[in-house]
């Protein structure tokens, strides 16, 4: 129901209720007032009728008095002269005075004269027998005679009610003694009532109490009492009746007098009510129409316009529009508030659009296929790269699902992934997915992250699919290259191992035989034979170490060199090194010095063979590049966890520009030295690699012409077996 209809209904209902209430109240009050007025009026008329009746009796009394207090009558009571009767009571007297009965009674109650007259027929009629009993029946009638007074009232006779007046018979001047009583009566018959009606201009009727009463008269008679002497009884819309009892001379109800009245007052009231009703309805209509009009103009039209404007803004989504409703009332304020809300909404929308642009820019800048999906698997937004791959616009992608773009199997696979993410709230990663056939196949790595709302409910997901085809291909190529390189390295190692073995055996033989010759196993040698044989032995040893270096280098390259840590005594190491190097040192005339600092523990944990190899290599090197002086080996603690082995020579030293190169594979320390020393330059490189492998480091300190110091720093207790 529209607001207009509601307002109209409210106005109409209010008007109707007001009208009805007013009308009902008015009708109640007015009807009551008119009824009371009618009642009073009727009562007044009944009283008037009663008064008329009283007047009638008074007139009757006056007539009786005229005849009773008259000397002729007074004398007649003495003389009983019939002339008096003839002169004074002819039919004309009855007719003129409207008398139905005249009776004269003497002081003894004996009827002296009685004459009855039919006022309708205008003729004398026999006196009813009851008249003779009158005195007997109503002894009170005599009292006037005795007390010089008059009595008037109604007397009920079997023939009907009779108005009577009894007067003491006196002289004309009103003095006595009383000689009897004169009674005049008038029958209260229809003609009398008609007479009264005519006089009073009232519709009267009189019914003897003894007669059968009509029902409404009976009802009225039942209500009549001393407290309520007059009863008003509306018969119908046109007629109202007033009732009252006329009592007889004994005070008993004798005649029910009724007055019929046209209900003019009542009808006037009804008419007034009708006019009032019409007037009120008319006024109500006018008020209603004015109210509706005012409401329409001040509220509903403006509200309607406001409603249409807000609706239009809502439909168009154009938050820059504003409502036009003006005014200082609530509607005006509402419109202002709506405008303010629109301002806020517009700002929020602008901010949202900015965020969206940022998100889209961010999405587009991601070097991957990126998209947002809702929980049902529909794309919300996707980046440029994704859309281009599908040959769709961003708008075409939005709202679609994977089933719109891919084969059912592929879409199903993606849907299962999406479902996992949205149901578990966990990230789903597909590290490798191949799309298409070689050679055009692409490889994707996909990550789907759940998107949650502020209540931590999953409402969708963010998907990122990286094209890792190139990376994958490069990795594959790299793997092939690595396998090939490893195979080559294995081959090289194997070759070196074989070559090494094959070289060592003949070297061993040359060395062995040379030593045997030197040892005199094959007989004594001449002095000049010893020197070349010694050279052969030295060169064999050198060759043996070279082969070992080659083998070690190949093992280091292949990562196959295994360290074995166990405790060894620095003293043993020192002795072994000196023993192995002493021959070379002696041959060059160099002093070989070994020193172990007192703080060095008697046992050190380490790979003895490799430490031995490193130090011997450095010592051999030092002997080789030192022409005179000494080679010293110092073992000392460096700090709580490390010890240092220093090999110090007094040789030619190494130039600064060459120092950085001495540890490189296949580098000779000095181009000058290279001329004197024939080798592959593996020694120091292997030293460095081995020391590094053992968790230590090699330091070089040298000045040209000042000698060289190599310092090997190693952990006192290597934590674990290290594998290269």
């Amino acid at each position, binding site marked *: 129901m529209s607001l207009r209809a509601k307002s109209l209904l409210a106005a109409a209902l209010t008007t109707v209720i007001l009208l009805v209430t007013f009308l009902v109240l008015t009708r109640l009050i007015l009807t009551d007032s008119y009824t009371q007025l009618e009642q009073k009026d009727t009562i007044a008329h009944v009283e008037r009728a009663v008064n008329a009746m009283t007047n009638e009796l008074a007139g009757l009394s006056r007539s009786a008095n005229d005849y009773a207090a008259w000397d002729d009558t007074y004398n007649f009571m003495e003389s009983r002269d019939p002339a008096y009767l003839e002169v004074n009571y002819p039919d004309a007297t009855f007719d003129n005075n409207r008398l139905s009965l005249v009776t004269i009674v003497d002081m003894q109650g004996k009827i002296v004269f009685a004459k009855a007259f039919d006022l309708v027929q205008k003729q004398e009629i026999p006196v009813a027998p009851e008249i003779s009993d009158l005195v007997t029946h109503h002894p009170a009638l005599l009292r006037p005679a005795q007390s010089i007074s008059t009595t008037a009232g109604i007397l009920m006779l079997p023939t009907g009610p009779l108005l009577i007046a009894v007067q003491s018979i006196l002289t004309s001047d009103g003095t006595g003694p009383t000689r009897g009583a004169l009674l005049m009566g008038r029958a209260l018959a229809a003609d009398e009532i008609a007479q009264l009606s005519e006089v009073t201009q009232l519709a009267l009727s009189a019914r003897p109490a003894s007669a059968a009463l009509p029902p409404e008269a009976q009802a009225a008679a039942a209500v009549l009492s001393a407290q309520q002497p007059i009863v008003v009884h509306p018969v119908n819309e046109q007629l109202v009746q007033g009732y009252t009892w006329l009592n007889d001379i004994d005070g008993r109800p004798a005649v029910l007098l009724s007055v019929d009245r046209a209900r003019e007052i009542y009808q006037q009231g009804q008419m007034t009510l009708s006019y009032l009703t019409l007037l009120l309805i008319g006024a109500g209509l006018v008020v209603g129409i004015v109210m509706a009009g005012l409401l329409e103009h001040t509220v509903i039209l403006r509200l309607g316009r406001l409603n249409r404007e807000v609706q239009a803004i809502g439909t168009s989504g154009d938050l820059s529009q504003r409502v036009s409703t003006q005014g200082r009332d609530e509607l005006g304020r509402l419109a202002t508030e709506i405008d303010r809300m629109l301002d806020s909404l517009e700002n929020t929308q602008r901010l949202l659009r900015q965020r969206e642009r940022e998100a889209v820019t961010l999405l587009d800048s991601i070097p991957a296929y990126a998209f947002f999906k809702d929980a049902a698997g529909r794309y919300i937004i996707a980046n440029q790269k994704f859309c281009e791959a599908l040959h769709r616009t961003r708008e075409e992608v939005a709202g679609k699902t994977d089933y719109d773009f891919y084969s059912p199997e592929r879409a199903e696979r993606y849907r299962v992934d999406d479902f996992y993410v949205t149901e578990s709230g966990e990230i789903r990663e597909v590290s490798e997915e191949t799309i298409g056939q070689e050679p055009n196949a692409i490889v994707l790595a996909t990550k789907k992250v759940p998107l949650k709302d502020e209540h931590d409910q999953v409402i969708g997901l963010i998907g990122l699919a990286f094209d890792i085809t190139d990376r994958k291909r490069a990795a594959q190529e790299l793997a092939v290259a690595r396998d090939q390189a490893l195979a080559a390295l294995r081959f090289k190692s194997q070759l070196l191992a074989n070559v090494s073995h094959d070289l060592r055996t003949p070297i061993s*033989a040359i060395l062995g035989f040379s030593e045997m010759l030197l040892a005199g196993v094959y007989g004594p040698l001449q002095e000049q034979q010893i020197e070349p044989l010694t050279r052969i032995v030295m060169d064999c040893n050198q060759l043996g170490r070279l082969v070992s270096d080659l083998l070690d280098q190949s093992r280091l390259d292949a990562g*196959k060199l295994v360290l074995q840590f166990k405790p060894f005594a620095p003293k043993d190491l020192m002795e072994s090194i000196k023993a192995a190097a002493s021959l070379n040192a002696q041959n060059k005339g160099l002093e070989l010095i070994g020193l172990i600092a007192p703080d060095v523990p008697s046992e050190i944990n380490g790979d003895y063979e490799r430490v031995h190899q490193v130090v011997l290599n450095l010592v051999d090197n030092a002997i080789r590049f030192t022409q005179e002086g000494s080679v010293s080996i110092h073992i000392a603690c460096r700090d709580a966890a490390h010890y240092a082995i220093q090999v110090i020579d007094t040789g030619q030293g190494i130039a600064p520009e060459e120092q950085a190169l001495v540890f490189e594979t296949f580098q000779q320390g000095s181009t000058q030295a290279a001329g004197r020393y024939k080798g592959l330059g593996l020694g120091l490189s292997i030293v460095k690699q081995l020391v590094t492998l053992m968790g230590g480091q090699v330091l070089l300190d040298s000045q040209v012409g000042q000698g060289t110091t190599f310092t090997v720093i190693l952990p006192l207790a290597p934590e674990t077996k290290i594998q290269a």
Partner: protein
Amino acid sequence: MSALQALVIEDDRDLSLIFSQALRAAGFEVETVGSNSGAFTHLAQATPQIVTLDLHLQQARGAEILHYIRTEPRLARTNVILTTADSALAETLEDQADYILIKPISFTQLRDLAARLRTQF
């Protein structure tokens, strides 16, 4: 006290000769074998104090002979000197061997080692 015995297991004739001379110079009676089967045959009946074992012995894996010596109670007091060109291979058997000599092996080195061992018997 019978003469101390040594067994040289080496397939290279030159080295076999050099090792024999070094051990004889140290005072041992020396037998030489150049094959796996020869080694097992000899060890089945002799109880040498020293065995030099070439790990790259052809036909046989020196490791098997070493394992045999180490599991045969009769040979419990036998010193095994591994002679090899491959230090890495030798190191894997370090626990079972008494000494390891890396080729090229010096005549004097083996002679002096044997002479030192001789004093223990």
